[in-house]
């Protein structure tokens, strides 16, 4: 096997087959991944959820994961947000000529490991190789299908006054990790990306109650962006209690040094969940049982005034508006 990916590997001939077999099939092996033009899959009664996501994160490897793991988590989590058990994924790779084969294999291994954990099968894929400089290292697009659980109906339009706002863990880790990996500010901190597949904790939440109004994964733009999206879509106000928002000390320190707001730093393994406040404590307890959500917390509530706005209770007990999301702080974050 060559040490680097070459244009020949993307040409469709013998070397392409070699690449697919040695790197992808070797790791993604499951009965639905065949040599045919498409996977043939049974359809269950009910509704399916269908989603796609492109991944161009730079750097492609970072503490806590790599672009491969991210590409599985991102799509699995989008399906989970609809209450859909993730079933099948496809993945399309665009690889830069000269990309190290060893790294490609590590990425494939990560993807399979994550897929297994999420209970999802990679059943279709595609590989293209672009000339040097035509793509930056490696880009991955994953598309996923899931089966929506019965009795479940989540949507950004369904938040209601009286709902509690829950976040499933400490915020801003992924954004912070990428920022530090780019080594632009000379800051050293032990922060790892929160990148994680979240169907497991979603299923646990639904076991506690089907009455979950909104689940959204906080990715680019962080939790703050999600809150503004929901406030607008559901035409409600949201009031946060800043003291209750879980932020790791190191993330807080980096943000303090650089003047950043953790609520607007990307996450890749955090859900924002809206449930009636009476059920919230039970949901939190269920979440605490899982390693990906051990810091889950109720961070605020939905109110009927100030629709479309997110306000915060401040350190002096007063109230202020959370500034609306601006442009993306960090390009190529996921």
């Amino acid at each position, binding site marked *: 096997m060559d040490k680097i990916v070459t244009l020949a590997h993307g040409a469709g001939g013998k070397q392409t087959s070699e690449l697919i077999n040695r790197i992808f099939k070797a790791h993604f092996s499951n009965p639905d991944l065949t040599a045919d033009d498409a996977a043939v899959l049974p359809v269950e009664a009910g509704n399916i959820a269908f989603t796609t996501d492109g991944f161009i994160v730079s750097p492609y490897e970072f503490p806590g994961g790599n672009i491969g793991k991210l590409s599985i988590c991102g799509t699995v989590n989008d399906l989970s947000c609809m209450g859909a058990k993730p079933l099948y994924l496809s993945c399309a790779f665009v690889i830069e000529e000269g990309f190290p084969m060893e790294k490609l294999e590590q990425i494939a291994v990560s993807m399979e490991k994550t897929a297994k954990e999420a209970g999802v099968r990679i059943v279709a894929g595609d590989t293209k190789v672009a000339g040097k400089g035509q793509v930056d290292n490696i880009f991955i697009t994953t598309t996923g299908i899931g089966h929506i659980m019965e009795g479940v109906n989540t949507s950004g339009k369904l938040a209601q006054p009286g709902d509690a706002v829950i976040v499933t863990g400490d915020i801003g880790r992924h954004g912070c990790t990428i920022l530090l990996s780019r080594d632009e500010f000379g800051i050293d*901190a*032990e922060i790892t990306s929160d990148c994680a597949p979240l169907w497991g904790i979603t299923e646990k939440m639904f076991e506690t109650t089907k009455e979950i109004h909104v689940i959204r994964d906080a990715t680019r733009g962080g939790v703050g962006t999600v809150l503004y999206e929901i406030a607008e879509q559901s035409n409600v106000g949201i009031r946060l209690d800043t003291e209750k928002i879980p932020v*790791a000390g190191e993330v*807080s*320190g980096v943000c*303090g*040094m*650089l003047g950043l707001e953790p609520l607007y730093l990307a996450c890749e393994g955090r859900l924002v969940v809206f449930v009636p406040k009476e059920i919230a404590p039970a949901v939190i307890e269920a979440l605490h049982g899982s390693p990906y959500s051990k810091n889950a917390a109720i961070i605020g509530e939905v109110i009927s005034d100030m629709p479309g706005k997110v306000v915060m209770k401040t350190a002096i007990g007063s109230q202020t508006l959370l500034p609306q999301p601006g442009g993306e702080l960090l390009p190529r974050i996921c």
Partner: protein
Amino acid sequence: MCVGISARVVSINEDTAVIDVSGAKRKISAALIEDLEPGDYVMVHAGIAIAKITESDASETDHIMEAL
């Protein structure tokens, strides 16, 4: 980008220091502070320590309100 932040001094090497803000560390210039020791707290701005911090803001407030 010009925010000032309070930080704990972890180590000193000539006129640079490594500071720690809740676990995030960075090398900064300590050229403008005399008699700095590890464990001291400093106010950092634009990569340099501009002053030593001598007490918490809570006790500072108490002293000021008492003197009023």
